[in-house]
């Protein structure tokens, strides 16, 4: 199997884009990624687009065909990938497999979500489809409620406090304020998080990632061709995936996501690395408590210590391990299908030394962690700057 490299990246600002529709968002990101790769559109032989809920949000299915058409890439082979909030990360994994297998040579991976054309209520129902629609959403369990149930167990089993969760939001906003693509440009305080409106106890509005519009894109080629397109190609060392029970009630534990542990273990094995080798990691902080679980599940901190470590600043920019330098889902925004791709864009910038004020000094190895639903899908990638 061939090694795969990222040679082009692009993303739109994440936020409320009243003037841009679904098609406009992915076009902007795609064009930026191709320009970054010094590649012409007609060189692309495959397109993989991740989006979770286009049907409910904009009434549109058959996204593969739409992306190719609107980007002027028809008749390229174009595929929609869906795994709830892991749609973007999974689109990347499918793109990696397409190149590694030898069946494709120049692929564009995109992720996009347009969430503000519908009301917040309707968006909440659409997002509820990431969980078990029949047994969770149908009883009034919103997506925040599912993570809240896990957060409470983390508090019960490990003594984690709401302030610990809040510190994650504070850090991610601080990072986002250094990221011109981030939805939120303002720092916040622990007190502001603690006093924010409750959503699903113990989670409050500032513990929750927002509804956002946005898109991100990557160009992938075999590593051996990479320098034709970009001087600082990023080599993908591992691309892994695991599934977990759809419904929370079917899980064995509620303070960890087994899908994350399994995908991460496979990734470290594939890359022949350990958690301590990772310099910078984008994790799936759909809620502050999700980041606390993630940094434990990925092996960066011992089980139960994620809250304390976050509160003590061990995941801040240029601390023990820089987590979510983009601002994460909380600070940068979470256009669902775009997030997994954006995570890779951020890591690529970090490894190229192009992350500006949020640069992790000497970043050599980066990782992305993208989760679907309350943990039913996890996709992880490990990458480094190519030699």
């Amino acid at each position, binding site marked *: 199997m061939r090694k795969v490299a990222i040679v082009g990246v692009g993303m739109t600002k994440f936020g409320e884009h009243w003037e841009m529709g679904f098609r406009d968002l992915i076009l902007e990101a795609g064009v930026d990624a191709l320009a970054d790769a010094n590649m012409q559109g007609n060189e692309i032989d495959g397109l993989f687009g991740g989006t979770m809920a286009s049907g409910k949000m904009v009434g549109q299915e058959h996204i593969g065909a739409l992306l190719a058409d609107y980007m002027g890439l028809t008749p390229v082979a174009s595929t929609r990938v869906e795994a709830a909030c892991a749609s973007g990360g999974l689109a990347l994994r499918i793109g990696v497999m397409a190149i590694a297998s030898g069946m494709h040579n120049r692929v564009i991976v995109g992720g996009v979500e347009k969430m503000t054309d519908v009301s917040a*209520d*309707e968006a*909440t*129902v659409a997002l*509820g489809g990431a969980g078990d629609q*029949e*047994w*969770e*959403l*149908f*009883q*009034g*369990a*919103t997506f*925040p*409620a599912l993570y*809240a*149930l*896990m957060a*409470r*167990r983390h508090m*019960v089993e490990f003594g984690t406090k709401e302030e610990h969760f809040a510190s994650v939001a504070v850090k991610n906003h601080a990072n986002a304020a250094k990221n011109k693509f981030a939805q939120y440009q303002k720092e916040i305080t622990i007190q502001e998080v603690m006093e924010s*409106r*409750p*959503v*699903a*106890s*113990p*989670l409050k509005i500032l513990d929750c990632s927002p509804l956002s519009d946005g898109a991100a894109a990557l160009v992938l080629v075999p590593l051996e061709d990479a320098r034709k397109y970009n001087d600082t190609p990023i080599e993908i060392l591992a691309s892994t995936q695991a599934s977990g*029970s759809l*419904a*929370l*009630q*079917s899980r064995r534990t*509620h303070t960890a996501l087994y899908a994350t542990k399994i995908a991460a273990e496979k990734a470290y094995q594939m890359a022949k690395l350990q958690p301590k080798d990772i310099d910078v990691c984008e994790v799936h902080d759909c809620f502050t408590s999700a980041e606390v679980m993630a940094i434990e599940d990925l092996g960066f901190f011992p089980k139960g210590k994620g809250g304390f470590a976050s509160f003590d600043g061990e995941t801040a920019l240029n601390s023990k391990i820089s987590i979510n330098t983009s601002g994460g889902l909380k600070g940068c925004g979470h256009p669902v299908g775009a997030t997994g791709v954006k995570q890779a864009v951020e890591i690529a910038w970090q490894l190229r030394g192009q992350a500006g004020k949020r640069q992790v000094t000497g970043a050599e190895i980066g990782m992305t962690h993208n989760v679907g639903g309350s943990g039913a899908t996890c996709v992880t990638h490990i990458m480094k700057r190519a030699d």
Partner: protein
Amino acid sequence: MKAGIPSSWRRMKERYLLVGVHCDTCGHDFFPLRKICPLCRRKGKLVEKRFKGTGEIYSFTTVYTPPTGFDLRAPYTLALVQLDEGPKVLGMLEDIKPENVEIGARVEQIYRKWLEEGEGGLIHYGFAFRVV
């Protein structure tokens, strides 16, 4: 949210009677119903089992931002209940103030309305729980 009559009719046994399955091969119980054992797959011999509906609160959350259809009920409390037989089930926790909910409290199953599909639409009923 809509579900339609056929899909609701299919779920009646589970929603009203808390009927799940017991796998004779591995000895585990599952709720809701499964057509194949998650552990044994085709080797699993599944038998329907009605759960007693008694258990304890394993986790809970009070929802303040409801999805469409639950607007009038908010805030409401959902509990992950650990049934005495082993499986966990998510259900509405009724007749209790959020500040009085405790992990480990004993609960029993009751019947409540789940969701009304708009004016003139289907009304769904099913299990819920209350503290004993």
